[in-house]
């Protein structure tokens, strides 16, 4: 069944709206340097590299080729993997497969993006079918707004419920020095008051009903890197490890119009698969923490249901009962999540790194109090795809 694999190091750049002071390669290099330092190894210890981003955003196609100096891949195997929003998780999965195969001891996964270099919505539209979808698609914002329309219609969910997710993510981000959005004005204010402000303030521009500015992720320049190591090597590399317990990904349809909008099938099925592999029967009780790819607020409601953390229509209850807050039973996105930093190709890899650091208890001010044995990280993208990775404090059986 392959070798057991652990994460031994994680590094990221500060996530910012624009990093004019570095080009793509230099940005990548910052994250790689940080990850090597975190694992206390040098680039010589890396056997192979998997790198990814979404080509559309920078208009440059061969990052595996032109990044080799910054990525630390000179005269080493390097492979590019790009799967849209899930890219960051797919590079993690791919690095994991490399190591699990037994052919590589330490593999570096890199995700990055310079979203400041193009119009993000325009670039996202080019990921969809030119004949059947592009003529009238409204990028990620409109694509997610329509999902919310159905979810609200099905369960009587309100804009306040969406805003409560946004408040959680942004309050959490205040603890994360790396996060892009630091909404200091929120500090110390009551949750109810913040929710009220978000749904009534005219400054909070309506983008596509029901999504206001506060319901969406930002566009970010940033990079992340994670080092995966094989059993035997991992224990000698680092004292604190986060083991890969299981991973799964799912794609279903060709076109957005084919999707079952009532249920996120790919996310639900991928989560079910990793829970089954780890023997988890009651995810809400047995998972200790989540770093989820939630690009918009309503994902924090509907997708929680679809992954089996609660029943259909119960997402808002989980949220308002504070179960997913920092000190709740199941803290979700202590980092502030995607809605606080979104360097797209790096975004899902940040979920993996942040989840690993929570297990290793290296998260600084955003470290949760409780013990973290199982942490779930997810990626979401494209035509409703899902990549999921479950990390564990214990070496899997």
């Amino acid at each position: 069944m392959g070798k057991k694999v652990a994460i031994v190091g994680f590094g990221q750049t500060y996530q910012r709206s624009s990093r004019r002071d570095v080009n793509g390669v230099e940005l990548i290099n910052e994250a790689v340097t940080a990850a090597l330092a975190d694992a206390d190894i040098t680039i010589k210890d890396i056997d192979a590299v998997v790198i990814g981003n979404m080509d559309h955003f920078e208009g440059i196609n061969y990052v595996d080729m032109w990044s080799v100096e910054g990525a630390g891949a000179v005269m080493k195997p390097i492979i590019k993997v790009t799967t849209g929003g899930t890219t960051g998780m797919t590079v993690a999965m791919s690095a994991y497969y490399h190591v699990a195969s037994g052919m590589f001891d330490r593999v570096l996964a890199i995700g990055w993006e310079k979203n400041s270099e193009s119009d993000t919505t325009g670039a996202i539209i080019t990921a969809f079918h030119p004949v059947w979808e592009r003529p009238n698609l409204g990028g990620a914002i409109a694509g997610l707004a329509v999902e919310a329309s159905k979810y609200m219609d099905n369960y009587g969910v309100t804009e306040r419920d969406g805003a409560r997710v946004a408040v959680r993510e942004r309050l959490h981000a205040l603890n994360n020095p790396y996060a892009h959005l630091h909404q200091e004005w929120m500090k110390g204010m009551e949750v109810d008051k913040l929710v009220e402000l978000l749904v009534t303030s005219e400054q909070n521009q309506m983008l596509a009903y029901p999504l206001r500015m506060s319901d969406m992720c930002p566009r970010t320049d940033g990079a992340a890197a994670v080092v995966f190591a094989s059993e035997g090597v991992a224990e000698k590399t680092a004292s604190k490890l986060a083991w890969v317990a299981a991973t799964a990904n799912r794609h279903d349809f060709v076109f957005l119009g084919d999707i079952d909008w009532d249920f996120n099938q790919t996310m639900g099925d991928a989560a079910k698969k990793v829970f089954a592999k780890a023997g988890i029967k009651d995810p809400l009780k047995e998972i200790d923490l989540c770093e989820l790819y939630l690009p918009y607020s309503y994902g924090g409601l509907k997708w929680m249901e679809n992954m089996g953390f609660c029943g259909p229509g119960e997402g808002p209850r989980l949220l308002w009962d504070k179960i997913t807050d920092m000190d709740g039973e199941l803290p979700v996105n202590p980092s502030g999540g995607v809605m606080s930093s979104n360097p797209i190709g790096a975004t899902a890899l940040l979920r993996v790194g942040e989840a690993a650091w929570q297990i290793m208890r290296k998260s600084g001010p955003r470290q949760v109090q409780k013990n973290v044995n199982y942490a779930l990280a997810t990626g979401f993208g494209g035509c409703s795809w899902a990549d999921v990775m479950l990390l564990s404090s214990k070496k899997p059986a």
Partner: protein
Amino acid sequence: MTEQKQEKELLAISSGDAAQPFRWSVGKHGSKFLAELRDNKKLFGVKCPKCGRVYVPPRMVCGRCWAQMDEFVPVKDTGEIVVCTIVQFSFVDPNTGIQRPVPYGYAFVKLDGADTAIPHFLDSTDPDKVKVGARVKAVFEEKRTGSLMDIKHFAVL
């Protein structure tokens, strides 16, 4: 040196007005759909011989059943809104290179007789009309070129 000045001296190079035109094959099924739309204002789906799903836009393979589809079935120019929104933010439309005019109604419409939905513009930005489950009817362009945009938009009934 002030931060502002520093920022100014960090250069970024514009791609200018560079454009890269493409020619996308739409295949046999896609061609039939677009030709019928262009010439006769008729809409067609393709039916899976195994699961019976009617796909619009038509395609060759039902991925669920791994079955080839060749049976064209007519679908109506009326249908129902599956999901929808009113887009209020503007962005560069990569098809035209210009800012998309806003606001506009946007929905995935399941045509009567089809099992999948197509994305399109609505004629309304009235939040009381643009609703899940609302009935709609296709409005065709006078001059049609063989594109999905030969449907100008869907009128909310």
